[in-house]
């Protein structure tokens, strides 16, 4: 029980510091050249890494191939067809659930 509350409060403080760091230290002025060149490319790299880790992540150090891949393919199709995000997300979940139910 205590470990849970330590985790909650510790992660709260850590997250606030992490999110506040850039705005406080680099706020209100132009970034130095290297950072300014890198920032526009940051989003695609981060988002691609997040897609990969959330699709193939398991507990601990692992690559897991499971029904989420089917959900991601369905999501990709929906995004390509420009369906609304809510529809895309629900269909991805439904496809994943279906694959698990029959697999």
């Amino acid at each position, binding site marked *: 029980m*205590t470990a849970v509350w330590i985790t909650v409060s510790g992660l709260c403080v850590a*997250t606030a510091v992490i999110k506040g760091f*850039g705005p*406080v230290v680099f706020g209100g002025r132009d970034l130095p050249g290297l950072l300014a060149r890198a920032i526009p*490319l940051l989003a*695609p790299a981060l988002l*691609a890494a997040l897609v990969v880790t959330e699709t193939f992540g398991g507990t601990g150090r692992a690559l897991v191939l499971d029904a989420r891949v089917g959900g991601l393919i369905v999501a990709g199709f929906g995004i390509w067809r420009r369906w609304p995000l809510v529809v895309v997300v629900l269909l991805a979940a439904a496809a994943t659930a279906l694959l698990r139910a029959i697999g």
Partner: protein
Amino acid sequence: MPPARVPATCVAPAQPAEPDTLRTQAPARDRVLAGLRAGLPYGAASLLLGLSFGVLARPLMGPAATIVMSTIVFAGSAQFAALAVLSAGGGAAAAIIAGMLLNLRFVPMGIAIAPSLRAGPLGRALRGQAIVDASWALANRGGGRFDIEFLLGSTLAQYPAWVGGTVVGALAGGLIGNPRALGLDAIFPAFFLGLLVAELRRAEARPVAVMGGAIALVLMPLTPAGVPIIVAAAAVFVTAGFRR
């Protein structure tokens, strides 16, 4: 790289409420509302993610700590990571480190929005708390500029959904069943894919995305969760250092 921006020193830095005349954009309130609208679909997804967090966390953490965590931490992937460590029998320190590793990507994201912030240090730190993946990506105006009011509005659409979903999941988890059987763990990848595809419309984003994805794939079996994402971000800075 952004063409001849007026130096930030021309603007009184300690007056966040003062209208920013340098950026000829819609009024602040309109941009908050536009962000709110753009954030609504991500709020709907956050609701389902919060729901599954509530359901999964409750048996281990109890409903109170589960709800408080979503309210004061408000970082989905970090909360799931910390929960995974606690579920595996790990201690608080390991759980906090796991969550921090997943949150460390908010450091470069915070640096990215920093030049767009026109407030004192405390005001900037507070606005930084609104950084979440979807809002940050949606508020990106290219060339290193971010629409901060839009970002705030977008997060305003997602925060109550994340907390509300957690409340429902933590209190009524028994009625919902296993979030995995419902495929709710496929929401995160679908959510991020939607944001990624929007980025890929820019040609220069494509090789970087391939690099980020490949780094994550290679490192996932080797490193703790979160590290592959940070290395993917670090690689962007390294490659930017080599160009020009």
